[in-house]
């Protein structure tokens, strides 16, 4: 799941709805394995979305976001074909990003 990232940006009635799925374990640092070992915290801390290179959404997350995070947001100034990029960074310095063009719903 580590590399998985999915995005869909659909324009309808003047509003673009962006849905993103990020493959990530989102470990809180409190979970124990069957052997009783604590699994170290490993979670996404920052998510940034841009529209044609301009920041539209900046999210900070704690450990309470579910595993393999799902996120929806909406833009009112995007047009068909505009480029949306979403990237995340986690507490271990790992990151990933994905890009999509706005399409008709």
């Amino acid at each position: 799941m580590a590399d998985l990232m999915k995005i869909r940006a659909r324009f309808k009635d003047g509003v673009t709805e962006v849905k993103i799925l990020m493959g990530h374990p989102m470990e809180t640092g409190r979970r124990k394995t069957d052997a009783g070992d604590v699994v170290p915290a490993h979670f996404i801390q920052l998510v940034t979305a841009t529209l044609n290179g301009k920041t539209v959404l900046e999210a900070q997350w704690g450990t309470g976001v579910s595993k393999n995070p799902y996120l929806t947001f909406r833009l009112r100034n995007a047009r068909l074909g505009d480029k949306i990029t979403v990237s995340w960074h986690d507490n271990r310095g790992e990151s990933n990003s994905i890009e999509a063009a706005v399409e008709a719903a």
Partner: protein
Amino acid sequence: MHRRIWLKGLLAATALALLSPLRALAAIWNKAAFESEKVDGALKGLAVTHIDPTKDIVLIAPDMAENGAIVQIEVESRIPGTESIAILVEKNPTPLIAHYVFSNGAEPYVITRIKMAETSEVKVIVKAGNAYFSISKLVNVAIGGCN
């Protein structure tokens, strides 16, 4: 002697340049707010001052969640000038879940999936200008999901 000082400076600059991406991230992430074990501490970390109750935030969350590991929360602010939305779960080990900041034409709207340790109020805080608004909803959790 001069060369030595110059070299030291160069080394320090190089080290800083190498470290800066991580350090910059660490500086952005609101550690105090997210690691607080109390709602009050989280709000303090977010620099939230006076909070007014409102009916202009739509919070859609289930009345009953079978599995606390995945609870879908939908938030829409109808407060003019909304800049950010914070989502907290009062009874989670660390209550602050997420903080979203909107700009350049992003609607103050978000759907996100969160973990809930037990039955709790889900609290949403909206910032608009220098004012803060809040709405809460109780979500019953059958099986806690905060591991």
